[in-house]
């Protein structure tokens, strides 16, 4: 993992999803698998969290949410950390690939229902 701050013992994931119960279960499994997880329940809360340190090592966000969508959160996060790895989880991947601007580096699109094992592999490969 490439990082400009000293490497923390456990990577920090910022998880953004308005489906709170599901997100909390996901967070719990990620913690079991060796990650620290911060959680935000909508786009605006996620952007609020991103104004503060510590910056997460990975952003995992839902696409369709109230107040600000996954693309808005991604754009803001990248303005703070240009190479931040981003996973976008969506029920409609076509919507995401039609995103108005090219966001570079590209983010990973995961289709719901999330295949957790594959997701974990990708996370560990970072």
């Amino acid at each position, binding site marked *: 993992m490439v990082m400009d701050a000293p490497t923390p013992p456990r990577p920090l994931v910022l998880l953004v999803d308005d489906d709170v119960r*599901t997100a909390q279960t996901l967070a719990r499994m990620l913690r079991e698998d060796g990650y620290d997880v911060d959680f935000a329940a909508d786009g605006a809360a996620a952007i609020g969290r991103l104004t503060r340190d510590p910056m997460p090592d990975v952003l995992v966000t839902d696409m369709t949410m109230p107040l600000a969508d996954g693309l808005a959160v991604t754009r803001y996060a990248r303005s703070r950390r240009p190479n931040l790895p981003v996973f976008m989880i969506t*029920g409609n991947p076509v919507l995401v690939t039609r995103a108005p601007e090219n966001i570079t580096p590209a983010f990973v699109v995961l*289709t*719901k229902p999330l295949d957790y094992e594959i997701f974990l592999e990708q996370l560990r490969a970072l």
Partner: protein
Amino acid sequence: MSTFVESRFEELKRYVRLSPDDARLLTDFRALAAPHFERITQEFYERIREHEDAHAVFTGEAQIARLQRSLVRWMDRLLSGTYDEAYFEETANIGRVHVKVGLPQRYMFTAMALIRVALTRIADDEARERAPAIREALTRLIDLELAIMLESYRENIVSRLRRKDELENQALTRSLARSARYVNAVELARVVIVGVDSAGTIRLFNREAEHVSGFERDEVLGTPFAATLLPEEMLEAHGTRVADVAAGRTKTYEIADGLIRTRAHNVRNVHWHLAFAPGDGDDIVLFAMGKDTTDERRVMERARQHERLAAVGTLAAGLAHEIRNPLNGAQLHILFLERSLKRDKADPELLEAVDVVGDEIKRLARLVTEFLDFARPRPLQLTGVSMHELGKRVTQLLALEASQSNVTLVIDLPLQDIVVMGDRSKLEQVMLNVLQNAIEASKATNGAVTLRIRRKPRHVAIDVEDSGPGIGALDAPIYDAFYSTKPNGTGLGLSIVHRIVTDHHGSIDVESVPGRTCFRITLPIEAPEAQSGRMKAAEAAGRPTEES
């Protein structure tokens, strides 16, 4: 007739100087050539497939298989060394078969050229110093063979001319009072018009009738109307009513979903209108007027399918995306539950129950994905797609599945590759889908599935044949979304196949009897765009008018 051929044959044999030495050379040559017969035959039929007028005489794959055996036997006979009366009488008969099926004479020459080249090449490659002598013997014999086969075409023309004269004489002596104006109108009408006399014999056959049926006028005039033009199934359903009109018991009769038999032993859809109309100038008592609806029906069927798809598409695509959200929650929680149960060394039955729920969620997810594929397809990405590559790839992908199901997967590709303009991954999806269905259908019988790819003049035909129990009712809506007979089917597989094939301007048909079901996918070799462009140009120009 046979004495005529006999003397002619002796004379021709003398002309080309086919000698006993030639006969011996050719018999020896047979041993070298025989291992190549199979391959030559295959080349022979593939070449025919590229030419519309030649291909038109074929009636189906079963006939082609039979013909391939005939041709191998013919080559064997050609090099048998015995060139007597009986031999050439048979040659004349083979010629007559070709006249009868309506093979244009020119293709006898071109087809023979292929055989000649193939055989002389074998002589050159394998017969060493005897090659020049064998080549000469082959030239003599093959040209003799051609000359005799072509006699049949001459016999045919002579007898047709004679019949035509007879018919014209009859018309004159009865001084048919048909004014030239009406004759022209009947000729120019874009409607099939057949006039039938009180004995049920065809007396008038207009140009559109020739065009639709493929018969030429002088072949059908004087023959019985029903037997020549109406297929069995139509006679069964409407035969007595047709006879009623001919006898004047009924004045008119309409058959909207009627048929006509064609020269190539096929049928076309015709909307028939029969009218009892005796006149005093001629013998005709019944006019059968018909409109060829074959293409119309096909287009309508396609449009209907598209409409149905568009209607469900928009509404349901939105719903499908929404379903993925609860599925996401369910899948994560079930995984979480599974982990906890495993950690606590829970009862295996509990774990199994959790497994089942997990599988069901996956199945729902698959259903949603397939549905979206179908309702909101991505546009085609056209490239040249090699049928050889595609065929080999899909059979590789399915090899494991087939062997696990105890099904033998056979792939039968043409010698020469065919390249189709199409969307590679979608065509792959089509083949996988149809083949998977076939494998599943053949599982119970430990049967076989064949993927056969063949060239047609402007199309490629992809046949997937299985030995399963067959599709119960052929009019079952198998291409409709959510129609499924399989316990685990989503009912979308064939709908997607249908969609992709029609997007490629192709078609899909099925024939099924217990023990043999064959799906045939036909794709144009040209790009769909180029094709619709050409179709539009043709529409704008109107149908080509025939010379008069």
